[in-house]
């Protein structure tokens, strides 16, 4: 019984959600692999973007596709209805983002002397992390809504 409880705490997704997520993950991994190989093979013939940008675009597109499918399948949200874990995680992410941003600002301001906020890497990282957290939050909500669909 104790072991079952520990398992439940470590695995907030149920078995169907885990299977769905793994299936989508496998498909996306192969998609990423083949897209990168095609991009590499066609580099000399079709140049649709410079090398780092094309790889970046493929990775972002595949990640977006994975995220969309997982959320659509309802395999992102937890089975735990009253869990404090996601809030704890988001709090941890926000705190670490703020600390890292402050460290970046301090480094630029006091160590280099040429501090420019709009083009600052720390600010960009903060915005990126904020958007990332918002995506996670919205995805969780949508996935939980999907989980509650269906008739009795």
């Amino acid at each position, binding site marked *: 019984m104790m072991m079952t409880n520990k398992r439940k705490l470590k695995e907030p997704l*149920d*078995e*169907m*959600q885990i299977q769905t997520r793994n299936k989508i993950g496998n498909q996306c991994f192969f998609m990423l692999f083949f897209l990168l190989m095609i991009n590499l093979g066609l580099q000399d013939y079709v140049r649709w973007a410079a090398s780092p940008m094309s790889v970046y675009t493929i990775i972002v597109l595949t990640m977006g596709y994975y995220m969309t499918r997982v959320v659509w399948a*309802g395999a992102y949200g937890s*089975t735990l209805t009253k869990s404090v874990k996601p809030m704890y995680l988001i709090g941890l992410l926000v705190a670490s983002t703020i600390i890292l941003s402050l460290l970046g600002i301090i480094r630029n301001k006091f160590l280099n002397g040429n501090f420019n906020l709009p083009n600052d890497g720390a600010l960009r990282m903060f915005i990126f992390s904020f958007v990332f957290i918002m995506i996670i939050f919205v995805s969780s909500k949508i996935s939980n809504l999907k*989980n*509650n669909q*269906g008739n009795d």
Partner: protein
Amino acid sequence: MAKNLRLKVARAAKDMSQKELAETINVTRQTINAIESGDYNPSIRLCIAICKALNKTLDQIFWEDDDNDDDE
């Protein structure tokens, strides 16, 4: 896969909604819905958990034979 009407009947007999059953055995309502509609084949661990929650045996809910078939 055939619909599992016996699960639905057993759940209704205990006056439980899909959500209540799902919360009892710590899965999502979507999973219970998928099992009842025959879209998902649960593991033996989940079958046992469902049977315990509904006070039924595995035979009564999940065993399929000529006498006990839900195919429509």
